[in-house]
């Protein structure tokens, strides 16, 4: 799947996006996998209250949401538009 990072999440991880092969069945499992990869991921996801998630460009509220059929997962801080 494609992972997308925005704003300071992008800066902490050091990438705007990447392809990542994962067997995670939920968002929470995917985050655990990423945190174990490297410190920069662990740091980026250390405070999940500051992270928002979109699956295929739709915001989700619950980190237990299934990743089945999802091709793009985006992680970013709370939005500051307007």
């Amino acid at each position, binding site marked *: 799947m494609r992972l997308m990072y925005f*704003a*300071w999440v992008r800066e902490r991880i050091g990438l705007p996006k990447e392809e990542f092969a994962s067997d995670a069945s939920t968002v929470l499992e995917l985050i655990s996998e990423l945190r174990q990869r490297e410190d920069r991921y662990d740091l980026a996801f250390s405070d999940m209250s500051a992270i928002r998630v*979109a699956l295929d*460009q739709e915001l989700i509220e619950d980190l237990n949401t299934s990743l089945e059929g999802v091709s793009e997962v*985006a992680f970013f801080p*709370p939005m*500051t538009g*307007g």
Partner: protein
Amino acid sequence: MDIRVQDAPFTFGEIAQEFASGHAHMGAIVTFTGVVRDSDTDDLDYMEIEHYPGMTEKAIETYANQAKERWSLGDVLVIHRYGVLRPGDMIMMVATAAPHRVDAFQAAEFLMDYLKSRAPFWKKEVTADKTTWVEAKSEDEDALSRW
């Protein structure tokens, strides 16, 4: 419905004039325009707005459609810029046309509240000596609860 996500500047007055013209059954036009504010110490060099191409347009369209379902609206326009903006530059505008003023005002406020906290934009402020990501305000999140 007219939704534009762009890095180019826009001329608020021209777009507002065009939007407000030729709606013989719309008695009320409301516009909101967001302008880059300088810092309290007037040292903001520029602001940089990042967005999530694709999702941004879809999210705005979703909220505009929700507004059209909730209120009696003739037309809706949203323009939101990304990229580098300087103090005094216009970041974005919303315009609503409705038969009556209450619908036009409510729909514009609803759209603004959702654009603030639910459209995927992030603002970074750059001064001579530091770079700061603007933090989301709890009152902006709270504002959503009234809808």
